[in-house]
């Protein structure tokens, strides 16, 4: 055994230890990771956390954190400074990785923790070019000017850091172990970065380039027909009966319309199709208790840990319960002893693109208002994990940062576009939520809303005084009609945002005669509103369904509202399925297809998990619209803007001979009946291929493929195939991993009561059974009754006492 020299053996051992201590690609260092003491095993929760007392630097007095039977933290502090410090501490304790990964994303720093990855690098670059970190810095400066807000974000930050300082690698959240990374100190800038992330998700959509191309390809008539015409069934958030009691001063539109050189693929993030929400409040005259009831369910991309965390914040003159957004102080959707509030997103057009002409390749000057105007520049550096540094120079016009159209390489001269975005507007929107947390009545609520900038939200409100209200709220640019619908002229001041709609003119109403207020991302107002907001809101169906139900209801109880949040009825299906069934050419169907058509024609339009028709309808409609539009759209060789389904339904019903129906690739002229029949047979084939013979596997609950993924996309840390009903157009908007990320119902009154549930848990630790503990209740619509304490309770699951010096 000569070859077994001690030297060779030692080399082998060292090589083995180094290998097991090194990260290869996405594989964590195996020795470190599997170490039963400090590796991922240390994150397995073996017992409930124990009650304990901790010393917390910076506290002025003792703080108690009571965890109730679902482990919801209730923070009892003796002053607001301590309240937010403790909120920061507890949030970090439960959700540190989630907080951090979102700020890395918003800062364009993902490459720093993920390493070399072309897609991640591109995302980081685009994030920087959007001016996300730049605008976050602007916002911090704005918050700093307001001493109250600054004290809040500073205390919160201090709390997060106090928690981070207690950590050693052994008790890092498990994701850090998977990524072989370490937590970084928190700062108020990170809170602003999270705000930027919300802006990108909720107000980061734009169709300017696609609309320009669609107009160039199909002509302005097409734009008028599909984008500038509201469906008749639309009920805007503020009903048409509302009278506007003010005069609007509007900017003037330019005489001729600008035609861009190219509008091809300006660098966009894909608009987030999963974003939407419902909220409503009913007046005491319609409820069993005589007090208002408020309901809200924000729809987002579902994730684990949940985007929200339930929490109660209690201090003198402060007692709010609801959900927090990790990294932002206060409660974002919730209630206190006097009022309740919930938001849905507003689709106002707050992102516009301007074609820019530079004087020369240095990009130091651009043409504006008949003169050369100087640009400013900012250098962005991305430090990729492993040492590589990527630099990028941002060029700013007065509109905003400039990007180069991707396909302009083929043109003689590159074409540039500047972005004007509400996300870049300085402002202190976070203070609004703190003030709502403390609001006592309608006027406090309106005062809180005044300083809010963006993302614009429809804030629904109800109070113990019996008031209900909704405000379409946020800083809204005052535009001429259809300003910014297409790519704009960056050299002409007429295309600039020339001011804002005065806050008092923002669409709103209070205690309307119908006895309820509601919103579901549909248009804010009807045409009688004297300002222009946007051409692109959510289809009418969800909002209309909410109103139809509320109109008919009386003696409403909180349970009625919870049931309503689970409503799966599809107005979209109701509006077109009877016609589809009628249009089918039955002679063309085989026996099995005919048999299923009987089921389709007897469907009640409920998008229930246990039904077979919803999944079939979903694919049938998709196939049909594709066969109508895709021949023309694909011939265009560029990405065009698709009309909303509600308007397509209307056009098909009113004009069955509509010219797009014909397939331009064939010589014959197709009829709508033929397309509907072909789409039906194709869908039947598709469903059979994927789900076998008609049976349980055709159930919508399986077909919708509802995966709730981990926030860092780590496989195994999510929840797959959460069997559920729902649809885009139903109040219960659950589908394909998107949907109601929090459902809340609050009954106002002498004793305010709340119910709520989200698909997740409190802790963000995948090694705890609490991580996904609420999913089953969420799936089945069994809201939890919320423990809203007036004072610190005597009993708890466990309790954390945070002591000052």
């Amino acid at each position: 055994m000569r070859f077994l020299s001690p030297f060779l053996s030692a080399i082998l051992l060292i090589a083995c230890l180094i290998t097991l201590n090194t990260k290869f690609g996405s594989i964590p260092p195996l020795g470190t990771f599997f170490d039963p003491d400090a590796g991922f095993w240390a994150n397995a929760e073996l017992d409930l956390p124990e009650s304990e007392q901790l010393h917390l630097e910076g506290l002025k007095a003792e703080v108690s954190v009571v965890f109730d039977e679902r482990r919801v933290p209730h923070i009892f502090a003796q002053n607001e400074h301590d309240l937010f410090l403790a909120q920061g501490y507890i949030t970090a304790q439960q959700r540190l990785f989630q907080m951090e990964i979102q700020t890395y994303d918003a800062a364009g720093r993902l490459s720093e923790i993920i390493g070399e990855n072309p897609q991640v690098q591109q995302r980081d670059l685009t994030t920087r070019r959007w001016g996300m970190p730049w605008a976050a810095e602007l916002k911090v400066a704005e918050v700093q000017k307001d001493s109250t807000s600054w004290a809040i974000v500073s205390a919160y930050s201090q709390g997060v850091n106090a928690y981070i300082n207690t950590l050693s690698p052994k008790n890092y959240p498990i994701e850090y172990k998977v990524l072989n990374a370490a937590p970084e100190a928190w700062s108020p800038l990170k809170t602003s970065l999270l705000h930027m992330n919300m802006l990108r998700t909720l107000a980061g959509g734009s169709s300017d380039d696609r609309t320009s191309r669609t107009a160039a390809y199909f002509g302005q008539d097409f734009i008028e027909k599909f984008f500038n015409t509201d469906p008749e069934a639309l009920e805007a958030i503020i009903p048409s009966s509302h009278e506007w009691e003010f005069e609007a001063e509007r900017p003037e539109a330019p005489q001729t319309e600008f035609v861009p050189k190219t509008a091809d693929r300006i660098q966009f993030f894909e608009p987030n199709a999963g974003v939407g929400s419902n909220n409503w409040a009913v007046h005491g005259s319609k409820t069993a208790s005589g007090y208002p009831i408020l309901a809200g369910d924000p729809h987002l991309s579902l994730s684990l840990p949940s985007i929200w965390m339930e929490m109660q914040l209690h201090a003198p003159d402060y007692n709010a319960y609801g959900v927090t957004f990790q990294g932002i102080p206060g409660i974002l959707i919730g209630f206190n002893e006097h009022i309740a509030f919930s938001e849905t997103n507003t689709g106002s057009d707050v992102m516009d693109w301007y074609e820019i002409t530079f004087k020369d390749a240095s990009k130091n000057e651009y043409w504006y208002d008949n003169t050369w105007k100087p640009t400013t520049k900012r250098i962005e550096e991305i430090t990729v994990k492993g040492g590589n540094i990527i630099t990028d120079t941002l060029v700013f016009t007065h509109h905003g940062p400039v990007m180069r159209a991707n396909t302009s390489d083929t043109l003689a001269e590159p074409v540039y576009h500047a972005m004007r975005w509400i996300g870049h507007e300085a402002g202190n929107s976070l203070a609004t939520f703190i003030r709502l947390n403390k609001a006592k009545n309608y006027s406090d609520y309106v005062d809180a809303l005044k300083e809010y900038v963006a993302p614009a939200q429809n804030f629904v409100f109800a109070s113990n005084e019996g008031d209900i209200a909704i405000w379409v709220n946020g800083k809204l640019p005052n535009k001429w009609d259809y300003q910014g619908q297409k790519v704009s002229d960056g050299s002409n001041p007429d295309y600039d945002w020339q001011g804002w709609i005065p806050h008092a003119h923002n669409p709103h109403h209070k205690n309307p005669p119908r006895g309820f207020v509601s919103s579901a991302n549909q248009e804010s107002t009807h045409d009688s509103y004297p300002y222009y907001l946007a051409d692109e809101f959510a289809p009418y169906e969800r909002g209309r369904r909410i109103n139809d139900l509320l109109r008919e209801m009386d003696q409403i109880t909180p349970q009625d509202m919870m049931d309503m949040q689970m409503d799966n009825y599809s107005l979209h299906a109701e509006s077109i399925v009877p016609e589809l069934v009628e249009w089918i050419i039955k002679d063309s169907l085989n026996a099995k297809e005919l048999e299923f058509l009987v089921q389709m024609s007897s469907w009640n339009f409920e998008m229930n998990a246990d039904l077979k028709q919803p999944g079939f309808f979903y694919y049938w409609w998709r196939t049909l619209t594709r066969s109508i539009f895709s021949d023309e759209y694909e011939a265009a060789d560029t990405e065009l803007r698709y009309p909303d389904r509600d308007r397509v339904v209307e056009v098909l019903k009113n004009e069955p001979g509509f010219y797009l129906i014909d397939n331009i690739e064939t010589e014959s002229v197709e009829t709508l009946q033929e397309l509907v029949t072909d789409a039906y047979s194709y869908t039947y084939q598709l469903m059979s291929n994927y789900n076998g013979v008609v049976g349980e596997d055709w159930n919508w609950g399986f077909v919708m493929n509802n995966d709730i993924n981990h926030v860092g996309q780590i496989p195994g840390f999510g929840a797959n195939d959460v069997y559920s009903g729902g649809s885009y157009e139903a109040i219960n908007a659950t589908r394909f991993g998107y949907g109601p990320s929090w459902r809340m119902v609050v009954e106002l009154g002498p004793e305010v009561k709340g119910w709520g549930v989200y698909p997740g848990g409190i802790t963000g630790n995948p090694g705890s059974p609490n991580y996904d503990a609420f999913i089953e209740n969420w799936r089945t619509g069994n809201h939890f009754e919320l423990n809203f304490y007036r004072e610190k309770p005597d009993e708890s699951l466990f309790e954390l006492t945070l002591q000052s010096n």
Partner: protein
Amino acid sequence: MILALLIIVSAFILNLFLPWWSIALAGLIFGFVFKEKALTSFLWGFTALFILWGSQAMYTHLANDGVLTGRIAEMLGVGSPLIVVLITGVIGGIVGGLSTLTGSLMNPKKTRLLSTRIP
């Protein structure tokens, strides 16, 4: 046998306070002290740390009702949570085997300082 027991106990204590690779120290030291034949050293070292890491992992797996191991198994694409326990044991075992082997080979003396068998 004693060799394995001593490695288990000392590696357990070392791992509580030092990084994971400190378990190799246990193998090196007792491999040196016992100076078994190469194969014997490797096998005892492997067995010792396979048992230590494997049983620590198994205890955690059971006490946690498999919540975390189920997720890690899915992350690694290995099918069963028990394989996650097994991998942990094997990693410990390889380090134990190699370090004990190295320890024994590094001892130049022909005679053992201690015997693996109780006299």
